[in-house]
């Protein structure tokens, strides 16, 4: 039984730069069901964060969401008035970030930062909200929650800060959690603990989770489905085991050959020559054509669209790798 919580359709986000408009996200679509996790992978700069901020409607000028829809339980977030969206942020849709040091306000205590969100969304008094915050700190495995409640972010270790960040994000029991590289900045041993924690809380709260990383090793541990992005576009989307075992898109194949392991921060891509073209100079046709070993004439003329090739498996390529 799959109950769709989030449904993103043809999302497009443009940055109006001096050099002209840049499509940082161009036509991304995906669904995430209750209790399921979608992993989004891709090299640095491919638009993973911009996709997440767009879903939260946190894009600021010169950026602008220029198309598509984001349905949360059937309601389009992109057409809500800003005040209504504020009611949803932090209560129905929550987000955790890569750098827990900079993502927390250095001059306010952990407790204060949790309380302001809880009071805002749950209509509790400060005293009740404190109870709730302590409960959450306990739940994410922070020792001595009462002391940590009164601590400032700099008094916590990186791992503890990320736990506090998670406690804060989940304090209002959101239906949908976006985790933007939540383990990248952490030590390897801590990374594993944080992943486990997110999984444990997901089971408990039955959240849909969008998990962003450029580490395929992490993806295989946590995600049910994977979306591979390249230069703002989707390349391939499939259930995790299928994508790992039988990738069809040349970019996915190259990404997998870079042998990622947990703990490696940047995937090395020995199999892919060249670099990601800057979004200004994207060629017409397939964005991957300059680096693709399987490029054919059609790739330069036309942009491949995402097409279903099997149950839950979609692909945007004119000359995909053979199914093994």
């Amino acid at each position, binding site marked *: 039984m799959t109950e769709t919580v989030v449904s993103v359709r043809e999302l497009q986000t443009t940055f109006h730069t001096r050099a002209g408009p840049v499509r940082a996200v161009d036509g991304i679509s995906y669904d995430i069901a209750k209790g399921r996790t979608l992993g989004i992978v891709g090299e640095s700069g491919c638009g993973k964060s911009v996709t997440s*901020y767009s879903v*939260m409607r*946190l894009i600021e000028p010169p950026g602008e969401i220029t198309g598509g829809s984001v349905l949360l339980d059937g309601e389009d977030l992109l057409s809500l008035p800003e005040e209504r969206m*504020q*009611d*949803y*942020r*932090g*209560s129905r849709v*929550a*987000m955790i*970030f890569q*750098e827990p040091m*900079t*993502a*927390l*306000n*250095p*001059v*306010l205590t952990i407790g204060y930062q949790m309380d*302001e*969100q809880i009071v*805002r*969304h749950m209509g509790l008094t400060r005293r009740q909200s404190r109870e709730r915050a302590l409960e959450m700190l306990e739940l994410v495995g922070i020792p001595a929650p009462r002391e940590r409640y009164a601590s*400032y972010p*700099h008094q916590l270790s990186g791992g503890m800060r990320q736990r506090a*960040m998670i406690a*804060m994000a989940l304090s209002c029991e959101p239906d949908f959690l976006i985790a933007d590289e939540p383990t990248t900045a952490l030590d390897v041993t801590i990374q594993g603990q944080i992943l486990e924690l997110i999984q444990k809380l997901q089971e408990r709260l039955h959240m849909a989770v969008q998990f962003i990383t450029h580490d395929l090793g992490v993806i295989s541990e946590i995600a049910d489905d994977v979306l591979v992005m390249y230069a703002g576009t989707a390349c391939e989307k499939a259930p995790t085991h299928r994508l790992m075992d039988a990738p069809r898109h040349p970019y996915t194949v190259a990404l997998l050959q870079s042998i990622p392991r947990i703990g490696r921060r940047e995937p090395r891509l020995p199999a892919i020559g060249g670099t990601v073209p800057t979004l200004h100079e994207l060629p017409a046709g397939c964005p991957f054509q300059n680096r693709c070993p399987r490029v054919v004439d059609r790739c330069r003329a036309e942009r491949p669209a995402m097409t279903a090739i099997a149950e839950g498996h979609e692909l945007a390529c004119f000359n995909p790798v053979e199914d093994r």
Partner: protein
Amino acid sequence: MTGFILRRLAQTVVVIALLSFFCYFLMTLMPGDPIDEMIAANPNMTAEDAQRLRELHGLDQPVHKRYWNWVTMIAGGDLGYSRTYRVPVSEILGRSLLNTSLLAGAALVLSLLVAIPLGVWAALRKGSRVDYFVNLFAFAGISVPSFWIAIVLILLFAVYIPIFPAGGTTSIDFGMTPGEALVDRARHLVLPVLSLSFLSIGTFVRYTRAAMIDAMSNDYIRTARAKGLSWDRVLIVHGFRNALIPLITIVTLSFSTLFSGAIITETVFAYDGVGRLVFLSIQRNDFNVAMVAFMISVSWVLLMNFAADLLYGLADPRITYS
């Protein structure tokens, strides 16, 4: 923390002592002494009279002896006697100190009230036309000399449109009720306060804008927005609260420059404050007044530096005193 405060206080006292000697020494280097003034004022005085007076006042002794005499006098609670005003220094000083505090305090409050909203506004509209004009205004405030502003204000609001007095501290009128006297006092403050504020508004606007742009570019602002907080809350509790850290230092330190800025303003407006007092007493070789007033200014500057350090620590929990 207590250790830090004590150490800073000790430092401050040492600096004040050194500066006071230096300053005393500088004053003795100035041409002329109070006896020359007396000779100029009294043509019947002979050279022998003058010599006698010098000995009487200890002016024939070497600098370090005279300095020591002065220090022991001050330490004994006696600020000395003003030769030009012919009253004890403490009498004229108290009044002018109050006047200057009023002037500088009002200017500070006005500057902050104007500059902070302007700076925040410009920061939020960085690169827009609003930002451009606010910057232009701030630069004007910083670069235009304050005596010029003072003169323009006098021309505009005392000469062409005579709504405020051109100078002075109060009107000479003995028939005023307390209410009227208060209004009269306030009217005399308006132009000096405006002129003194101009520079600090420019400075504060620039710093507020920079601090706010810096604060708002931090990741925690996005976190605050992702939590669904209202825009006002994001702006004030998360943005401005952090911008406050650099601002506190600037504002506290500028409180001491307000005092020195007051010298020019008070002189142009013939306003009866410490700045003008120092200016006049140096001109007239009135050592006792000049030294005490100078020591107060120096102590004030040092005190404000000290306060800036303490407040900075209060505003930023990451700072520890050790």
